[in-house]
């Protein structure tokens, strides 16, 4: 669906931010994008929505160059949720905020209303539809930003570190929301530093290092294979993955604490509680 073909990019007066990066994204994937700050992650996602033109190479959407229409046209296919929700909120009620996108489109009033209602429903914001966005907690404002992007019915949603500043419960809820959206067929690209989150929720991870793509494959394989020098790329192997890797023969492939605990408990001869993974 979205093809990044040998893209290179440099900000004026700086060293290249991206060097010859190629990437192919199909519909409905859930991809993690990792790498240290400055590795090119944000630059890559910006080019994916058409904010900026590659110095060489191109970004193709459904076989046509993405730059033809610019980001305003791309917005209908690829939604972008910036890291700081406050920079994206400029209306007085949640509903009118979410309506901003549809208002820019040449849709009928009915179509716009449906789009807004659907987006609010998907993100669980119907109850606060008339509230003043800035009076709500940050996690709500994050969801408003997501709903605003969803209102244009994109097929792919890119989120730039959506969990920064959020507590553990809020992170869980956000990931549940993303899982639900992905289940409905919306592709998700998650830029994150949270290794546990990558392991637990993404099937595929792309790692950037100094502007180059150094890994593109199964998330579990990224952490399980010791030949991957994740430390050099600014990443960290999540403890669950490190332990699972050592016991791979007995645990098989696991992605979360619960799964790991369940399989180890099995080996230790105990029974486990299905849901929590705790030994009983």
């Amino acid at each position: 669906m979205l093809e990044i073909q040998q893209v290179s990019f440099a900000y004026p007066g700086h060293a290249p931010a991206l060097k010859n990066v190629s990437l192919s994204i199909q519909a409905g994937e859930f991809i993690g994008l990792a790498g240290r700050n400055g590795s090119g992650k944000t630059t890559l996602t910006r080019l994916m929505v058409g904010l900026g033109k590659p110095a060489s190479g191109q970004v193709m959407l459904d076989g046509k160059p993405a730059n033809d229409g610019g980001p305003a046209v791309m917005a209908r296919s690829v939604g972008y949720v910036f890291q700081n929700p406050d920079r994206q909120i400029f209306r007085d009620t949640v509903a009118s905020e979410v309506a901003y996108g549809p208002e820019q489109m040449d849709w009928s009033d009915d179509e716009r209303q449906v789009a807004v209602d659907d987006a609010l429903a998907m993100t669980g914001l119907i109850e606060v539809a008339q509230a003043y966005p800035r009076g709500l907690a940050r996690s709500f404002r994050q969801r408003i930003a997501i709903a605003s992007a969803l209102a244009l019915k994109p097929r792919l949603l890119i989120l730039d570190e959506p969990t920064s500043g959020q507590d553990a419960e809020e992170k869980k809820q956000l990931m549940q929301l993303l899982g639900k959206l992905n289940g409905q067929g919306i592709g998700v690209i998650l830029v994150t530093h949270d290794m546990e989150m990558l392991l637990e929720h993404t099937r595929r991870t792309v790692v950037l290092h100094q502007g180059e793509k150094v890994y593109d494959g199964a998330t579990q394989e990224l952490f399980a294979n010791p030949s991957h020098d994740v430390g050099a790329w600014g990443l960290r192997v999540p403890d669950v993955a490190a332990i699972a890797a050592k016991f791979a023969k007995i645990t098989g492939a696991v992605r979360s604490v619960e799964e790991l605990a369940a399989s180890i408990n099995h080996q230790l001869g105990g029974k486990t509680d299905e849901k929590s993974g705790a030994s009983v």
Partner: protein
Amino acid sequence: MDAVQFEDFSYHYPKTGTGLDQVTLSIPVGSFTVLAGANGSGKTTLCMAMTGLVPHFFGGSMSGQVRVEGQVTTDRPVSDIAAGVGFVMEDYESQLVALTVFDEVAFALENMAVSSALIRERVAEALAAVGLTGLEDRELSALSGGQKQRLAVASVLASQPKILVLDEPTSALDPEGSEELYSLLAQLNKEKGITVIVADHDLAQALPHADRMVVMEAGRVAFTGTLDEVFARMLSEQIYASAVPALRRLKAALETETRKFSPWTSADEAVAEINASLPPMRRLSLSA
């Protein structure tokens, strides 16, 4: 005398009415405490109370008291308290007020009418402590996020405080940056005996460095104690349990009446102990 003591302290912000509820807490001198809790649980208010900004800056209503280095915070002006307590706020970028690195670090000392010679000395020391030596004339807009944060730390270190409070310092940093910051804090804690208090959501990051933890819930202190004690209670009482680092959640899930593990701080420790508990036939040969 503890570094910070909350004595049945309650506080309510003037407009919202939320705040802290009967907090009694002691932070020992030289400790490294991590402050945890859901958003809105009172971590930031607690930090503000340690610097005197609550109540001096915000107004509102309070009862009980807060002692910092033995003295009650309501008895002294904020700048006085700040000489002993360095505070790096969550929005550390807006905390930076000057145009260049040197000016920023010198700012507090200039305001205290300290002599130019002493200022230069202290600025050099502070920049060296955070690893920004040589950047004295750099403009703030030319610094990276991590550098700005270290600058914020340097600017509060200039007055040589005995206590350092940081409110969620790692949200904008990548894992390496966070690790560097925590190493710096650990160094200041061990080598200079500075009492460190960090509010953070990522408890796994703090795990190797902190020796005490406080969990806030709805304006009250839910638990306080060593990390092991607090993690165990978070899990057993299911308060903010999802924040417990994966290693400790795993440990709790594997322990039974008869099988207990020691408090793991790394995956390797966990692997070694789990392996030892496996039936001999299933054990892996883990060479040292």
